[in-house]
């Protein structure tokens, strides 16, 4: 798979996030005790390197074993108290905000391959599993899309 290719629908994708319980702004715990979900604050979309839309870093779960690392290695050493949340490429592409019967905007997300974003030299091993969520939407409407995207990510404790 080449850089920029879409990930397969079934690919499990990982997003690291600040799980600080004191702030707890990046995740919300459902009242029924089911796994916590991420919030829009956990997704810092930045202008993409390609110049098209914005992007947000994720990792491909299936690539980690071949790199000899686990999910916890997707977290940087200085990110104390951070955790991992998982979703799938299919879930991200399946996000919708319009109810049945109403025509809404098409899903603005892409989930693409982005191994070694800074080049291979001295790259941490996790960069071999790096991928991006691409968002091609601006304006206040993107808040709803990002919130709903975040809701597809469930917290999976790694500590």
């Amino acid at each position, binding site marked *: 798979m080449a850089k920029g290719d879409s990930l397969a629908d079934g690919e499990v994708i990982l997003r690291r996030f600040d799980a600080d319980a004191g*702030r707890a*702004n990046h995740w919300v715990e459902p009242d*029924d005790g089911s796994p916590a979900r991420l919030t*829009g*604050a956990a997704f810092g979309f930045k202008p993409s390197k390609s110049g098209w839309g914005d992007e947000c870093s994720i990792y491909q779960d299936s690539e980690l074993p071949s790199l000899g690392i686990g999910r916890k290695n997707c977290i940087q050493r200085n990110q104390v108290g951070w955790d991992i949340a998982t979703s799938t490429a299919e879930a991200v592409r399946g996000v919708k905000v319009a109810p049945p019967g109403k025509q809404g905007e098409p899903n603005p997300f892409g989930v693409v391959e982005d191994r070694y974003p800074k080049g291979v030299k001295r790259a941490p091993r996790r960069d071999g599993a790096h991928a991006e969520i691409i968002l091609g939407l601006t304006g*206040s409407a993107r*808040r*709803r899309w*990002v*919130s709903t995207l975040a809701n597809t990510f469930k917290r999976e404790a790694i500590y």
Partner: protein
Amino acid sequence: MTYAPTYNLDFGTRPSDPFAALTRNVANYWGATIEAAKHAVDSYVSMFASSSPSFAFQIERGFVASSNISSAVNHTSKEVLLRFAEKRLNATRNAGEVELTLEAEWSLWALLNALVEQDGPTPQLVPTGDGAVEVQWLSGGVFVSAIFDESGDFDVYALENDSEVLLSEEVEFGQALTSETTETLVSLLARMGKTAKLRPALLR
């Protein structure tokens, strides 16, 4: 203990001096809400604090419990839920992650005041990541959310089982939710409340 809301979402036409009315309503709302919430919680704390350490523990963390210890049924009052929302909003604001305009704050509390009910799901306030605020309710496979922008406009959205969009509506500042949307939300939140048994957010 009764709780008397000072206004609801159906506030009719926009007043001629919206800013003055806004300020007054927000002040009235805050005064009534905070006082009612404090009084409700404090009275229950004093009532049960000496009866059982575990009851006092629960109450301090937001539960209002029945007086029958042998068959205790926990209820979470509207006041406690609103107080929790206020606490989360303040924490988020103090962290510098939310910059609420008066209009946005007014819309937020008007919606919460209209939709939060005893034993309903917990309103969880979070930043959107770009300065706005969102309230989320999650329970029983249902996700309900409202995002407030700087103008006081907001949208409400509901999703079930991660796939079925139940509701998506945009509301302008000063306008009421449609009766159909209100009915849908009230019914949905009541259903969610029946699955809201653990409430980990309140215990944190």
